[in-house]
C-alpha cells in the first residue's frame, strides 16, 4: 500500500540519498523530501496502521492521531524550511544528519509502542550529535561529546524505565501513566533529560550555540519538542511537571538575561518556552494539553525563525557575541524585521502565534484555580519579552553602531525567514487554522478585549522596565556557570582525585611488591645460590661433610619413631 509508507522511513531514505546525489539533484531531494514526507504524514490514519512481530512483541511502528499528526506536520515543515534555509550554505553531511534527525522526530511522533519510540529516540540522539559536530570548531567537538554523553545517558535511563514497564505490566503500549514507581520515574526522567529539565538543562545552552549557523536552526526544533510530545502521550496530568515547568521557565529567563552569546540567549529561551509546555502538561486538562501542543507548534516556528535570524548574523559576520555586534539593522533590514517578528511571537504579543497559544496555557491554569501557577506564568510572559523579545533584537540590531556593515541574508535564507514570519503572524491573526488540528475540541477565545489589554499592559511595561534598567544589563564578556559545572569541573576534579588516589595506591603496591620480591630473591640466593653459580653456592647447593648428613638422618628417624609410637 503506497499511502502507508511510514513518513519517517521515507525521510531516512531521503537523508541517505543527500550524500550520493550531486548538484541540482541534491537540491531537489533536500527541498522535495520534507514536502513529500508531509504528504505521507497526512495519509496516516487514526489508530494503529499495522503491526510487525518482533521477538515476542507486536510492534506498532505507525499509529496516527490528531496530536501525533500535528507534531509530525510541524517536524516535516521545519525540515523543509530549515532545508531551504541551509541548502546553499551547509555542508551536505550536516543536511543529511539534520534530515535523519528530523526523521527520528517524525518516527517518535508516530511510534505506537515504547520499543519503536525508543529506537527513533536514539536515532535523534545520534544524528543531532552529528549536527552539533558539524559546527566544525574545537568547542563544537567538545560540546558534541558532552551532548552525546548526556543523551546516551538519558536514553539508557529511558530504556531502563521502558524495560521495567514492559516487564511489570506486560504491555509495550504508549498510554497515559503517572510517575508512581521506579519504572515510571525512570521513563519520566529519561524523557525530561531530552526536554532540558533541571538539573541537566545546561546541555542545551552548552551544545546548540556551538553548532553551525544553520545547524542550530535544526537543533532548536526537534529534541525538546519530541520530549514534549512524549510527555503529553505518557504523563499528562503528572503533578511533578508543574513545578519542573515553572522552574524551567524562570531558569531560562534568568540565564538568558546574564548571557552575552547571541544564540545562547535563544538557547536559554528554548528551556523557558519548553517550561511553559511542561507546566501545561502537568496541569493536564484538555485545554492545557491543547495549549501545550499548540504552543509547541507555534514555538518551533518562531524559535527557528529567531535562530535563522541569529544564524544570518553569525554567517555574515562570524561573530557570536552581543558585545561584538550592534546596529546591524542598517544593512540587514530583512534579517532584523524577521528577527523582530520572531521576538514578538515568542513574547506572545497579540496578533502573533505566541499570543494565541501561550494564553491558552495561562487560561488552563486560571480555570483550575492555580493562582501561583497563573501568576508565575504571567510574570514569565513579561520576562520572555524582557530576555528574548527585546534583548535579542536590541543588542543585535540596534544598541549602538558597531561599524559592521554586513550584507543581508542570502536569498534562500531570506525566503525561509519570510515563510516562518508569515506563519507567525498568520497563526496569530487566524488562530482557528491551528486550533482545528489540536487533539481536543477547542473552546477558547484568544482575543477578548480584556485579555488583549492585560497582556499589552504586561508586555509594554516590561519593555519600559528593559529600557529603564538597561544600565544594569550592560553586556559583559563572560559566561555564566550552570549545572554543567558539576560535571565539567567538579566531576572532572573528582575523577582526577580518584585517578591520583589510584595512581598513589598503585605506586605503593608496586613498591611493596618489589620489596617482597627482592627479599624472596635474597632468601633464594642464600639457599639455592645464584643461577650463574658463583664462588659461594647457596645452602642447598653446597657440599656437606658425611657426618652432618648422618646426624640429620638420625634426627629424622627419631622423629618418625616418636610419631609412630604415640
Amino acid at each position, binding site marked *: 500500500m503506497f499511502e502507508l509508507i511510514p513518513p519517517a522511513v521515507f525521510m531516512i531514505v531521503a537523508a541517505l540519498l543527500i550524500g550520493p546525489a550531486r548538484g541540482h539533484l541534491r537540491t531537489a531531494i533536500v527541498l522535495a523530501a520534507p514536502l513529500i514526507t508531509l504528504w505521507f504524514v497526512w495519509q496516516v490514519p487514526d489508530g494503529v496502521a499495522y503491526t510487525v512481530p518482533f521477538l515476542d512483541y507486536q510492534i506498532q511502528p505507525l499509529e496516527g492521531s490528531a496530536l501525533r499528526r500535528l507534531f509530525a506536520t510541524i517536524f516535516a515543515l521545519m525540515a523543509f524550511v530549515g532545508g531551504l534555509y541551509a541548502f546553499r550554505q551547509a555542508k551536505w553531511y550536516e543536511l543529511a544528519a539534520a534530515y535523519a534527525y528530523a526523521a527520528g522526530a517524525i518516527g517518535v511522533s508516530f511510534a505506537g509502542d515504547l520499543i519503536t519510540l525508543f529506537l527513533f529516540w536514539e536515532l535523534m540522539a545520534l544524528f543531532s550529535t552529528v549536527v552539533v559536530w558539524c559546527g566544525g570548531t574545537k568547542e563544537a567537538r567538545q560540546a558534541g561529546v558532552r551532548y552525546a554523553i548526556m543523551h546516551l545517558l538519558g536514553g539508557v535511563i529511558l530504556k531502563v524505565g521502558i524495560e521495567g514497564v514492559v516487564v511489570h505490566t506486560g504491555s509495550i503500549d504508549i498510554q497515559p501513566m503517572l510517575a508512581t514507581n521506579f519504572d515510571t520515574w525512570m521513563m519520566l526522567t529519561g524523557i525530561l533529560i531530552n526536554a532540558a529539565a533541571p538539573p541537566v538543562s545546561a546541555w542545551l545552552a552548552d551544545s546548540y550555540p556551538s553548532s553551525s549557523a544553520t545547524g542550530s536552526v535544526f537543533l532548536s526544533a526537534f529534541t525538546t519538542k519530541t520530549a514534549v510530545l512524549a510527555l503529553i502521550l505518557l504523563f499528562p496530568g503528572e503533578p511533578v511537571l508543574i513545578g519542573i515547568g515553572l522552574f524551567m521557565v524562570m531558569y531560562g529567563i534568568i540565564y538568558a*538575561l546574564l548571557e552575552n552569546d547571541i544564540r545562547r540567549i535563544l538557547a536559554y529561551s528554548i528551556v523557558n518556552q519548553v517550561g511553559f509546555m511542561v507546566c501545561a502538561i502537568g496541569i493536564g486538562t484538555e485545554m492545557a494539553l491543547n495549549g501545550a501542543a499548540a504552543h509547541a507548534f507555534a514555538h518551533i516556528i518562531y524559535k527557528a525563525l529567531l535562530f535563522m535570524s541569529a544564524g544570518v548574523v553569525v554567517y555574515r559576520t562570524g561573530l557570536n557575541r552581543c558585545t561584538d555586534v550592534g546596529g546591524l539593522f542598517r544593512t540587514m533590514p530583512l534579517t532584523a524585521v524577521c528577527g523582530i517578528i520572531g521576538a514578538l511571537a515568542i513574547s506572545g504579543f497579540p496578533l502573533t502565534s505566541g499570543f494565541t497559544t501561550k494564553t491558552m496555557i495561562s487560561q488552563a491554569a486560571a480555570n483550575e484555580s492555580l493562582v501561583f501557577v497563573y501568576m508565575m506564568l*504571567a510574570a514569565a510572559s513579561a520576562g520572555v519579552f524582557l530576555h528574548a523579545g527585546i534583548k535579542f533584537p536590541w543588542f543585535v540590531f540596534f544598541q*549602538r553602531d558597531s561599524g559592521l556593515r554586513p550584507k543581508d541574508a542570502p536569498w534562500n535564507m531570506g525566503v525561509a525567514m519570510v515563510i516562518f514570519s508569515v506563519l507567525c503572524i498568520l497563526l496569530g491573526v487566524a488562530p482557528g487554522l491551528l486550533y482545528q488540528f489540536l487533539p481536543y475540541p477547542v473552546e477558547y477565545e484568544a482575543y477578548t478585549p480584556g485579555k488583549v489589554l492585560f497582556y499589552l499592559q504586561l*508586555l509594554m511595561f516590561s519593555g519600559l*522596565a528593559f529600557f529603564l534598567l538597561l544600565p544594569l544589563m550592560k553586556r559583559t564578556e563572560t559566561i555564566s556557570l550552570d549545572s554543567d559545572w558539576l560535571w565539567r569541573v567538579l566531576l572532572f576534579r573528582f575523577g582526577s582525585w580518584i585517578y591520583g588516589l589510584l595512581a598513589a595506591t598503585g605506586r605503593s603496591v608496586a613498591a611493596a611488591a618489589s620489596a617482597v620480591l627482592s627479599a624472596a630473591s635474597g632468601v633464594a640466593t642464600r639457599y639455592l645460590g645464584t643461577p650463574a653459580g658463583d664462588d659461594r653456592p647457596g645452602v642447598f647447593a653446597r657440599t656437606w661433610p658425611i657426618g652432618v648428613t648422618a646426624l640429620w638422618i638420625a634426627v629424622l628417624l627419631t622423629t618418625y619413631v616418636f610419631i609412630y609410637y604415640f
Partner: protein
Amino acid sequence: MNKPQHDDYWLARPSTIKLLWRVFAVVLVLLVLAQVLIYVKGYFGVDGWFGFGAAYGFLSCLVMVLFAKALGYVLKRSEDYYDDGADDV
C-alpha cells in the same frame, strides 16, 4: 561604547529616539487608561485591579533583572573559564 560616529540613518538620530520615547510614553499611559473603558476580567480578584497588568509586568521584570544581576556576581566567569586544560577532550 564606541565613539559616536557620523550616522545620519534616520532611526539612529537623537531626535528620532526622543520622538520614539515620547510615543512610547503616550502608548503606556493610554494602555493603562484604556482599562476605564475595557473590562479586564480578574480570575483571582487582584488581577482585575486597575493597572494590575502594567504594575505586575514592570515589577516582575524589575525583580528578575535584579535577581539575575545578583546571581551574576556568583556565576559569572571569564569566557575562557573552561579552557584552562580542565576540560580537554
